[in-house]
């Protein structure tokens, strides 16, 4: 096994990540504005921003999901218990003793087990919760004449708001995690230039050097 710098985040993946980041920021900011937590932008502007960025994010997710399945990248997010305990132990104890992060990125496993589980939950629980409730909310004009529509809307709004809080918590932890293990910058750079240290098998290394020399340094 050799550690090499390998391109693990393709251009589309990086664009996806940063566009998603920007849209989620706009959504959190405008959403909590609509909720009445701040009045930094007017209600009309907040509605416009929130609706537009939500629709753009859905479009982005449509492409993202397509990409995940066509490139087989979905496999990165399959949960596994192998190595989970070590990672958990590291964040609870080892990190304070100056130990190194126990996980080494593999070519087909670029996330550590805890990370993979967290992202998977985000993708299959929190995000659907917020976009499904959001879409039903957005199309209220189509079902407003159903019985008790107003009460249903109230419930939807609560779920939507609750999911927003959970996503904000995720964002905070996600950013904090960048400071653990290596430096903040080292964690950040792969998502900018695409390259990170990956533990390669001799076969993977040989393949990359021969067939994808641009993806290995």
């Amino acid at each position, binding site marked *: 096994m050799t550690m090499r710098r390998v391109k693990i985040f393709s251009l589309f993946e990086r664009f996806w990540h940063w566009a998603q980041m920007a849209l989620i920021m706009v959504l959190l900011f405008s959403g909590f504005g*609509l*909720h*009445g937590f701040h*009045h930094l932008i*007017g*209600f*009309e502007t907040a*509605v*416009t921003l929130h*609706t*537009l960025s939500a*629709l753009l994010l859905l479009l982005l997710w449509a492409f993202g999901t397509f990409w995940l399945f066509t490139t087989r990248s979905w496999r990165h997010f399959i949960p596994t218990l192998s190595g989970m305990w070590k990672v958990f132990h590291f964040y609870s104890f080892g*990190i*304070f*003793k*100056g130990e190194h992060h126990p996980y080494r990125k593999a070519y087909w496993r670029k996330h550590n087990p805890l990370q993979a589980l967290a992202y998977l939950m985000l993708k299959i629980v929190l995000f659907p919760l917020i976009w499904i409730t959001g879409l039903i909310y*957005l199309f*209220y*004009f*189509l079902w*407003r*004449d159903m*019985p*008790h529509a*107003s009460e249903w*809307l*109230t419930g939807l*709004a*609560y779920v939507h*708001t*609750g999911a*927003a*809080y*959970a996503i*904000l*918590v995720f964002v*905070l*932890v996600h950013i*904090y995690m960048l*400071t*653990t293990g290596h430096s903040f910058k080292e964690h950040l750079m792969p998502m900018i230039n695409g390259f990170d240290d990956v533990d390669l098998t001799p076969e993977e290394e040989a393949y990359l050097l021969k067939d994808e020399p641009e993806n290995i340094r």
Partner: protein
Amino acid sequence: MPPFLGRVLVVLLAGLLAATGALAQSQWPTPPATPTPSEQISGPLTGGTADHTKFEILKQTFATGSDVTQACLSCHTETGGHFMRNIHWTWEYTNPATGQQLGKKHLVNNFCTNARGNEGMCAQCHAGYGWKDEGFDFTDETKIDCLVCHERTGTYYKTPNSPGSPACSVMFEGKPPMDLTRIAQSVGLPERANCGACHFNGGGGDNVKHGDLSSALKHPPRSLDVHMGVDGLNFACTACHITNKHLWAGSRYQIEAKDQDGTGLPGQRRDVATCESCHGLSPHEVDSIASFKRNDHVSSLACQTCHIPEYARGGVATMTHWDWRTAGKTRNGEGYHEHGYTQGNGEHRYTYKSIKGDFVYAENLVPLYRWFDGQMNYTTIDTKFDIDRQPIAINDFSGDREDGRSRIWPFKPMYTWMPADVGNGTLVYTHLWGEDDSSYWGNYDMGKAIAFGMKKAGLPYSGQYGFVETVSYWPITHMVAPKEDALSCESCHAVGGRLDGLKGLYLPGRDHNRWLDLIGVIAVLGTLSGILGHALIRIISSFRGQHS
């Protein structure tokens, strides 16, 4: 394309067009102000084919208004029959839904209380000549008053049909004589001042009753009323209250709270005075996400709710409280009045009158907002009420988010302490106007005036009168502001906004779940402090690590 897909597309497109929308807004005011004032625009009859100054029959000297009417009817042969069916003549309306007998002939209001029995005074605003008691002949078309609505000189006036107490009749003395020939030749379609002669003065004075109908609408700037503005569209009342055989569209006895038909079929004339009958069911041009959302609001909000930000604008105040309990005070045995309010246009208003009691005036008022299905239920003279449940609603109304017919409407509430039969728990007909010694106006004896009024109407009276607090609700529908002055989202989508406390809807910005927010905020702050704690231990332990 199915309509659903269409709307989805519109949402998507609307986003792209948001920028264009901002551009369009900079081209306000719309409709553009017209530099040169035009003729008032009436209903579909605009564009006359006859010059009334050329009619031989109008070139005579008229002794009375009724003589003019006979001249009118000699050409307008069917008008008498048409006219005698409308509410301006009958003062009577039976609500088809509730069966209630309404109209000025029957109702008790919480201003001057009742026209019934006081026709000698109140029927000045009857579109006829000489109604002073039960003897009036409602089948005599020569008694129709054509001029009050159609004359255009502005010199026509009416005085009470009976002399009344000398204490009051003095108000009507010394008026200049009228040139009925010139007045008769001036006739045309009604202008705002014609309708306003009565409708701006409901309740006994300028804008007293409605709050959205005042003399300020005779020559309003478009900022006061975008349709009637003399520097804008210059609509007469009949541009919206369109007429068919002298029957008018738009009635507050039977209100269309939610027009679902819009403009109707191409070329079809809809005999309603709703906003939708001209503006349609999607009144906002969809050029942004926000305007798309505004069109959705049409299902829940009357147009008036956002587009009439305040009523009693334009410098003329409306009355909000009236207290009959203090009426009847005299100085040296004579009634008096007190000025106490100077309104926006500089005019003084009485805040006390011996004949009426104390008043409170106010202007530029934020309406009361309620779900309203268009159905008013009146406390009529024969309605029994529980005098312990005050204020008693003179006209209550129903409405609910769920009923499919209601929308949120703006109202002016009017609070009045007024006389009632506290023994029987009913309203009373008070005898205000008369030449006898029982009329309240002149004699100031409420007990006597009520006993007389009830007896005259043949109604039971316990002999025990008192004062009850009442409230009446007046839907606000005039004084539509230009769109740049309409309410913004925050007017309602905020804690403490205009729809504070209104039930039956989830209003983002106003409505929160306290527990959800508490848990959410604790989760976020807990995460932050967890991060801080984790980071702190890392820093401290790395510091120790360096030392060891």
